[in-house]
Every structure is written in C-alpha cells, then in structure tokens.
C-alpha cells in the first residue's frame, strides 16, 4: 500500500466517450396523476438515461487494469465478450459490467491477479430499474485494493423474471451479510450463499422493500385541522 494520495486519479483523465443507456421515461413536469394538468407541461416526455458503455481509452489506470483482466480471462479459456458486457468510466470511477455466467471467474481474477489484487469486498448493494427490460435488477459489488490503493465496481444486471446472481462469499467472506441485505431488499437470489436469509426485515416479511414497485407506506399527518399527505403521496417534481 502507499501512504501518498492517489495522484494518478486526476479528473482530466476520465473516459470521455461514454454512451448513454435509456432506463425509462419522465412524463410531464410535476408527476401529477389523476388530476388535470395545470402546469402546461403535461405533454413533456423525457428519456431517463444513465451512463452506458465507455469506449477505450478510459484514461487513468483503468486501461491497464482492463487489459490485465481480459488477458487473464483469455488464459482461463473464457472469451472476453462472454464475461464482460462493457466498461463504464464515469466521474473517474470504473464500473465493470459482468455477465453473471462468468462473475465468479472475473471476481477470482480481480482478487488474485497481482496486478489487480482487489482483496477487499467493501459492499454489495442493489439497484432496481423497473423499466430497463431484461436488466431490471443490478447487483453492485464495490471492491477495494489496499495493495494498489484503487477502487472498482463490478455490476451484474439480471432480469426480474430470473433474479439469480452467483454469490461471491467464497471469494470474499465479507460479502455474506451484504448479499443477505441485497436479497432482503431487492429479492436478488445469490446462488451459493451459505445462508441466504433476510437480515433487516423480519423472517416472515412479504416483499422486498427497496424495489421500486414496493410502496413507501406512511399515513397522512394531521395537525390543527390541516392534513399533510404521506410522503409518497405528495406532489413530486422529479
């Protein structure tokens, strides 16, 4: 490990040619439903897009790391396109979007190759994009290399109809509770996890609360005759 700050990660280095990936639509300006449109923006339709694939060169240390990973995968007899969907370089962070079929090989390589050495799995969490057909659920595995003082994110996108992701607990034992939490909140099933049970919600809970189709709940607040609707029922602007 190094004691000095990570100077190779200057913002100028970040990948510039990143495509955008549509994940949904935003209609109107105030998200008002069930009442007449008083804003005049009711016909407005905008595409919601998140950063997608980044073309090389990525900049910073990202190219070299990607090369090492790809070379190692080929040596193991895995075609790169069967393992890695694409890379995203955004805000000076590298995301490797991995196909679940080869997640374990990629994870093992990221941990063991001495030019990579991501020896710590910091966190696993999920994101739900209900309108991104076939890629509704994402598992984000945040990795840290103390040896090289770097971070990388491994992302796995799976369809909601088949929410299986291989568990990385055999590679990083610290992923245990994080995967249980992601299962609890998103319903992602981590195959090979030693005891995939709920961790935050009670064992007999119905549904997975962080999914976008799970309501926030809440009751209207009444005070001195006035009523404020529950947070999810209030007019939103996003």
């Amino acid at each position, binding site marked *: 490990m190094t004691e000095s700050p990570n100077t190779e990660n200057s913002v100028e280095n970040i990948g510039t040619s990143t495509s955008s990936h549509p994940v949904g639509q935003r209609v109107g300006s105030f998200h008002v439903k069930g009442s007449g449109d008083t804003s005049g923006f009711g016909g407005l339709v905008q595409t919601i897009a998140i950063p997608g694939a980044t073309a090389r060169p990525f900049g910073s240390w990202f190219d070299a790391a990607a090369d090492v990973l790809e070379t190692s995968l080929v040596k193991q007899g895995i075609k790169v396109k069967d393992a890695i969907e694409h890379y995203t370089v*955004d805000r000076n962070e590298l995301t490797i979007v991995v196909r679940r079929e080869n997640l374990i090989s990629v994870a093992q390589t990221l941990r063991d190759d001495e030019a990579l050495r991501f020896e710590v799995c*910091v966190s696993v*969490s999920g994101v739900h994009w209900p309108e991104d057909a076939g890629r509704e659920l994402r598992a984000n595995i945040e990795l840290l290399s103390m040896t090289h003082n770097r971070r990388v994110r491994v992302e796995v996108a799976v369809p909601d109809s088949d929410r299986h992701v291989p568990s990385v607990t055999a590679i*990083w034992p610290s992923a245990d509770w994080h995967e249980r939490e992601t299962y609890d909140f998103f319903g992602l099933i981590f195959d090979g996890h030693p005891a995939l049970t*709920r961790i935050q919600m009670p064992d007999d809970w119905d549904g997975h609360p962080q999914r976008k189709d799970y309501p926030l709940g809440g009751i209207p607040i009444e005070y001195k005759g006035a009523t404020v609707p529950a947070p999810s029922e209030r007019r939103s602007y996003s």
Partner: protein
Amino acid sequence: MSTDSYADAYDTTEGRVHTLVGGDWDSVHGAPEGQQERVVVNMGPQHPSTHGVLRMILELEGESVIEARSAIGYLHTGIEKNLEYRSWTQGVTFVTRMDYLSPFFNETAYCLAVEKLLGITDQIPERATVIRVMLMELNRISSHLVCLATGGMELGALTAMTIGLREREIVLELFELITGLRMNHAFIRPGGLAQDLPAGAEQKIREGIAKLKKNFKDTSNMLVDNSVWMARTSGVGYLDLTGCVALGMTGPVLRSTGMPWDLRKTQPYCGYETYEFKVATQTSADAYGRFLIRLEEMDESLKIVEQCLDRLRPGPVMVDDKKIAWPSQLAVGGDGQGNSLEHIKNIMGESMEALIHHFKLVTEGFQVPAGQVYQAVESPRGELGVHMVSDGGTRPYRVHYRDPSFNNLQAVPAMSEGGQVADLIAVVASIDPVMGGVDR
C-alpha cells in the same frame, strides 16, 4: 416439569432439547452420563451489554462459547427507502440519524457523494471544508469517548463510563453552540454548510479542546496499564490481518493489526492530505490494542481541530452556484428561528424572481445528473461508504450506506468462538457497533 407451555422438552435428532424460560432450572437434571450438554442462550436484543439492540444467539458448553451468531434488524427504520422520496437536500436530515454517534460523518459522506455526482467537488468553499473537517474530528472524539464509556461500563469499569460521558458533554456543548443541536444536526448540506459558525464559536472551541486535552490524562490514567482492564481486554477478540481483510474490517480493528490503513491518508477527501496527523496503529490485534488506538486517535483529532481553527478565514460557506446553494442563511428571528432579515427584505420587497427562485429551490430542489458514485470517508468505526445513484431527477434514485458497524459485526464469531462468554462482551465493545448505523 414446568407447566409453562413455552417451556417444555422434546426429542430431536441431536438429542433431547429442553426449553427454559427462567426460574425452572430445577426441572432439568442435566445430560445423562457420557453425553454432552450444550446450552443455547439468547442474549439481547434488549441487554445492557450488547451495545444497543444487538441480539446474540450463543451456544455454550459451560462458560465457553462454541457458536456465536448475531441477529440484527431491530432498529431498521428504512432510511434508504425514505431518501428516495425526498429532495437531495432533505436527505441530510435522514442520514444524520443513521449512525447516531457520528452524525457529521454520515452527513459529510452523503454531501461529498452528491457533490461528486454534481461535479462541484472543487467548488466547495475553503471555509466550509475546514469547518466540515473540524466538526468531523470533534465528532470522532465524542464517538470514541462513548465507545470507551459504554465499553468500560459493559466490562464493569463504571468510572470510565462517567468520565467518558462527562468529556463527551464538552463536545456536545460545542455542537449545540455551532449547529443548535446536540445530535442529528443536518448541518452539512450539499454544496457547503447550513450556516456559518456563530459569533464567538472559535473561542469556545479553543476553550473546549483545552479542557479535553487536560482531562484526557484522567481517561488514560484510569485504564492504560490498569491490570484489571488489561486482564479483560488483552489477548481478547484476536483477529489478524488476514482475517480482517477477508472480513472487510476497517477502522481501529484493522489498524490494531499494524496496518496503517486510514482513508484520511490513503484516499484523502476534504483536504485531509494538508493536515498533519499520525495514523494510530498497534500490533496486538486485540481489544486492548483497539482501545489504545482510540485513545491515540482522540489526541490526533485534537491536533487536527487546532489546525482547522488556525486555518479558518472569513468567507462563504456555500457554493457560489445559485442553482444549488440554499438561498438564504438562517438567522435567529423574533420567533426563535428563520431566514435572515436581509434575505426576507430581498425576496418580499425587491425581487419577485428571487422569491420564485427561493420557492423552487426549497420545494422542488435541484436536479443531479444521472450516474452512480461511491464515496467513502473514515468514520470512527471504519470505512463509511455511500453508493449513490441518480436518474437525473430532484430526488436520489437509490442511496446505499455501507456502514462500518454492519460489516464489522460479521467478525463477532471469528473473534469470540472458543473463548469465554465474558470475553464476548469485550469483543463486541471493541468493534464498537452502533445499531442505528447497522440497521439503518
């Protein structure tokens, strides 16, 4: 046999199981000759020595812990879900309540992540950043003092508790002076701070840290080299570097193995690379080493606070961009709280556009470009990370907190199995989990 329907006996594949509810030990006559006796004890979630609502399920043979399992979730409040229904600025009010002993770390991690998504990290005014660092380091002291206090209490050192809570009070009074609240401040906001330091705050902080410095000797004298304290903590809760890395341990637990991993040094944020301080390490990899690290870190934090005070120069505490900056500075009005009079004069009497702008920014908030970031800070308990996703709207699409206590609690079995029940208490105390952060 007891008549209690919850306390009965039944046969399983592993032998006869007796369920006891208290006061009915006489009804069990022990295992037959030649058979092992194993007692399963449920400890918590309401127990004075489990450091909050942590539940432990222990399998004991005599006084030895054979298996320890922790169960969490008793303080789950759905903060991450709630954030998705609030504006980016309102989110601070929620995250400050997660790990309630280190609110400024939660707030700073959140704000740094929002700022990274907005791409305004470089535009945060110097004064705001210095005050953030100062508040975080004062917070590190107050958090470590609670760790010593509750840890001491759990191991029977009650004077350590009274000293720790007494000293923490000095810090909390400073927080109250600066933010108006002792906990749950919501003071650090995306783009800067909610408001500037009040008049006379710098003097009060200097007086406070002088007092703390003087009293730290009491705390050290109380427990360092104290033979009873050492007997309870030395060699207890051992976890070496390999174990720490495998289990993703950070903070004092990792540093007690001799690894000088501190994000303030290795991946600096808020300008930590410009402050002079040491990373405290020990090589004993046990509960006593972690205790020594926390003592040393409090000293180092005081040094950083002093450097912050020397660096404070007058200036803005909110980013210049009026599309992000909260429109007014708060001021105490006749009713105890409110917007500054100057601002009210402007929006009510001079500029209708300013009023519209104020209204839009407060009710609708600002939009954050789509994308995802991970931002980590070194909290008193280790790496506090925020994974934040934006869909380009005025509300967070998804915020995940990687709380160090949540991750570190996974090490309880590795640290305690094979030891004594009493050592388990020292193990949990040395991890210093805060259940508000674990369960969120």
